[in-house]
């Protein structure tokens, strides 16, 4: 598949998948909104999926062959948690964590600091 062909297919699939999550209740669940299984999943699934994604991508951001494995991602991730619990401002938390991670990656500050 060509690059453009892949991008077109990708955007179409992503658009359909996203729209599906929004329209399915209106197509199939007009009569089942009170079903306890749907209520149960509606209550717990979003939190579980977010935690799952956070864990997978935290792991993928880490340098696990460093002196202290994964310290880069753990430090930046912990900063996001602390700042978010402190100010509860999503953009501030994301900006601070991303800036910290970029600083760590671009300066190699953890490696030199620990080696010295």
């Amino acid at each position, binding site marked *: 598949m060509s690059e453009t062909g892949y991008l077109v297919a990708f955007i179409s699939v992503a658009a359909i998948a*996203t729209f599906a*999550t929004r329209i*399915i*209740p209106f197509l199939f669940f007009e009569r089942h909104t009170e079903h306890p299984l*749907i209520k149960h999943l509606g209550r717990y699934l*979003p939190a579980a*999926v977010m935690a799952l*994604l956070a864990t997978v991508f935290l792991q993928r951001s880490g340098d696990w062959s460093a002196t202290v494995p994964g310290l880069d991602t753990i430090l930046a991730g912990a900063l*996001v948690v602390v700042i978010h619990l402190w100010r509860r401002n*999503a953009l501030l938390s994301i900006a601070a964590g991303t800036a910290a991670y970029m600083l760590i990656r671009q300066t190699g500050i953890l490696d030199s600091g620990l080696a010295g």
Partner: protein
Amino acid sequence: MNSSVFRLTLPILFGYLPLGMAFGVLFATQLDYAWWAAPLMGILIYAGAGQILAVSLLAANAGLLEVFIAMFVLNARHLFYGLSLLGQFRGAGWRKLYLIFGLTDETYSLLTSRSRSQDTLHELDVDFRITAFNQVYWVVGCTLGALLGRNVAFDSTGIEFALVALFIVLTIEQLKALGDSFPVWAGAAAAGIAMILLPPAHQLIGAIAIVTAVLLLQYRNLRARSGAEGNNHV
């Protein structure tokens, strides 16, 4: 009416512009596709976390089935937004399809929390405009970010951490709203198991399957327990 809709959606503007820009910068700095694909995604997909995840899926040249499953599950929370709006959207006519398409987290929170008059048609028109205004903010943010990322030279190494940070923030928000940490531990544990057992390309789908199974088991146990209690009381 548009000025009152603008005032209502102002907080969303302040949220969507920077987040859309973050997506645009990420798209333009991580990928080699034309910059305008970023706003195009904002128009056609219109999902914050979904589009940011899409950047890493595009970078990995992910298979289309994996793209579908990952996007569907990431946005699965929207399934439950619709359930609570079945009644409210009734009678919206031609507007209904767009109201459903534009049902993001922020639009949902605005549509369900604002005060409504008895005039259903008028209120649905306001809902429609709120949805459209919000998407305009989002697409403008995506455009600005993509242009910025393409034209301003800076070392963007590590900017992809924005995705991780976003998921951490969303996890904390879910945890606070729920007041129960079980699903968070279940999700993290499922991810851990999938990462140990599966190659990277299948970890996301594997973890999703595990955590869904855990939640179904939990549902069965809760039902069995409440059923037993119910019998004792009889």
